[in-house]
């Protein structure tokens, strides 16, 4: 239990005697959402200046945020444990296709959601029981499910049987809120309560922060990882259902942009890829920024290709401005500046360096040392 408290972002104790500014700074330094807030500000300023339509047609914007955000929420649960679920977009596509291939709407939805849970469980099985890196396991799953979506749908969009239900689903129910946004809000609140107020969810942070410590503290790590992947699978399947209902047809190629945007949302929202830090609020802010960005680009008539460039750029920026990445880069830069790298460096990419009198002996020593150190 103590492990849980020290690794969760809100659970640290602060001496309250400091000044208000100092306390504020400390709270800020503990938060991880800074980059997402920054991006959101930039997007706000640009949209207010150049594309105010984003604000006036807020139903569209909110719908986009809900689409990106829903998948990103599921990802958050997995990334908090230091794992990654690349299969989310394919799960979305496959769930939509499965739902559309049932004649009965309710049965279809149930089957789709069950598929999501199953996909999550299979992913978790490969990650914790077999011991494959989650990037590779879920990547294999991504290809498998994408293929499955093609096979089930016969490589073309499938119309849902009950088109009226789909059209009704796209209509606002409370104020301007469509069912999609309500589902997103419910998922957000549920995940927030789960991750910060329920023991099982709080243990996610411990599992991500230090897996061995969590295991030693008696946390059933295997079960938690299963829970996390199943949450992610379920939420992506839910997103697939929502998507299919709104479009009244399931597209087997759905979701490739969603994959990119939801990853960017979660990562720029401050969910650390190594696990243990982050919050659903960060993901919400990140999803808002990316959703607004996408809508703004669409409304200004920018092509999908250019949108992909922009979102890919945001994702690349998000991973390299991760605190750990910046630290690594600073260390490298400093050692370069001080010239140590120049002296110590054996010329990592210098071919045939062992023939060179100056590099020779050192390189051979390096070889022996690395051979001892690695057990291959």
């Amino acid at each position, binding site marked *: 239990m103590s492990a849980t408290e020290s690794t969760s972002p809100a659970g640290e104790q602060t001496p309250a005697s400091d000044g208000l500014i100092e306390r504020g700074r400390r709270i800020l330094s503990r938060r991880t959402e800074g980059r997402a807030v920054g991006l959101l500000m930039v997007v706000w300023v640009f949209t207010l200046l150049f594309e105010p339509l984003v604000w006036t047609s807020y139903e569209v914007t909110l719908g986009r945020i809900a689409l990106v955000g829903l998948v990103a929420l599921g990802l958050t649960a997995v990334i908090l444990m230091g794992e*990654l679920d*690349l299969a989310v977009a394919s799960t979305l596509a496959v769930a939509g296709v499965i739902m559309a291939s049932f004649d009965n709407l309710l049965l279809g939805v149930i089957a789709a959601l069950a598929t999501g849970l199953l996909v999550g469980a299979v992913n978790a099985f*490969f990650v914790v029981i*077999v011991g*494959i890196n989650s*990037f*590779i*396991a879920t*990547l*294999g*799953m*991504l*290809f*498998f*499910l994408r*293929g*499955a979506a*093609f*096979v089930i749908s016969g*490589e073309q969009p499938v119309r849902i049987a009950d088109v009226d239900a789909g059209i009704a689903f796209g209509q606002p129910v409370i104020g301007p809120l469509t069912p999609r946004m309500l589902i997103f809000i419910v998922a957000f609140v549920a995940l927030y309560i789960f991750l910060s107020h329920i023991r099982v969810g709080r243990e996610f942070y411990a599992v991500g922060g230090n897996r061995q410590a969590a295991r030693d503290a008696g946390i059933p790590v295997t079960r938690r990882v299963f829970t996390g992947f199943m949450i992610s699978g379920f939420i992506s399947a839910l997103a697939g259902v929502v998507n299919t209902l709104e479009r009244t047809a399931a597209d*087997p190629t759905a979701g490739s942009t969603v*994959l*990119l945007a939801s990853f*960017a949302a979660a990562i720029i929202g401050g969910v650390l*890829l190594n696990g243990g830090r982050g919050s659903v609020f960060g993901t919400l802010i990140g999803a808002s920024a990316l959703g607004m960005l996408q809508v703004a680009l669409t409304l200004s008539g920018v092509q999908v*290709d250019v949108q*992909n*460039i922009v979102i*890919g*750029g945001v*994702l*690349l920026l998000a*991973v*390299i401005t991760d605190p*750990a*990445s910046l630290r*690594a*880069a600073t260390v490298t830069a400093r050692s370069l500046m001080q010239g140590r790298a120049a*002296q110590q*460096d*054996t*010329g*990592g990419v*210098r*071919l*045939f*360096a*062992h023939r060179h009198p100056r590099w020779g002996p*050192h390189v051979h*020593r*390096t*070889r022996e*040392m*690395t*051979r*001892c*150190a*690695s*057990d*291959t």
Partner: protein
Amino acid sequence: MSSQAPAPTTPHPSPARAEDEPEATPFKLSAWLSTQGIVIFTIALVLFAVVFVDGFASLPNLTDVFNRAAPIGIVAAGMTFVVISGNYLDLSVVAQVATAAVVLIAVTNAVGLLPAILLAIAIALVYGLVNGVAVGVFKANAVIVTLSTTFIGLGLLRWLTGGSIYFGDSDGPIRTFGTTRIGPLPLSMVLFVVVTILLSLVFTRTNFGFMVRAYGSNREATRLAGVNTPAVVIGAFTMSALGAMLGGFVLAAFSNTAVSSMSDGYDFRALAAIIVGGTSVFGGRGSVMRTLLGVVFVSVLTNIMVLTGLGFGFQQMAIGLLIVLAVSVDALARKTRSS
């Protein structure tokens, strides 16, 4: 770190195992499968195809298999460096192959062959540098980095070309290269074998190859030994980029056309070939020669599926499954080795 040169003996807490010969350890099925299995599987698959699949063992079909295997194989041979360096894979080969193919055809049509090749090399170096710096210097996750560079690269390519198809000159050097054959072997297959041998030499005979392996099996030890690890990672991604560029050339020459969507599926086919060949995704173990076997396996499997009428969807499913299975065998082998 602060010392001038590292001490000759580092007190590194590694399980001090001797170089284990396969014979010295008790026989473990998963370990054997992950290192030697591919040879048997490939032979079995080819025999199966020859006996049971109609039309497999015909000359036109075999030439077709070779023609399709060559670009994937060249891409996979380059990407092997990234996998062995412990950085999982380079997803951006999809964008790189398409870019190289379009550049080769379009720029040759507009300016000439030499400027086209030079431009493609420059683009490949940029890809290697961007991926390598993000992964090697910033220590960012390779999958996420290359995923984003894929979207950036493909987005740029589609935006600049407008998704149009480029046709090569009907009797230019590209066309000649694509149609020349030595017996049943197309020239591209010969190029693939030559590239594999060359890269294999780089891998086994140079310091760079050695350091890629060292970095893949123990990053921290390699860094402490004074190796410029960011340079190793950048080098590995540059190898992958150059391989993808050559693969794009071969692909463009084969069909004498180029379009931005022509390389769909190259990422996972290449990865499947590498992993099935027995190179470990956990880094440090594997070789370029193994990738050659893996390419044969994946190509024959794909060809069987095409001949039996299973479409792109089934191929993706099969290859996704293949990746997960092969990695599972590797993971189980590691477990039995370490216990």
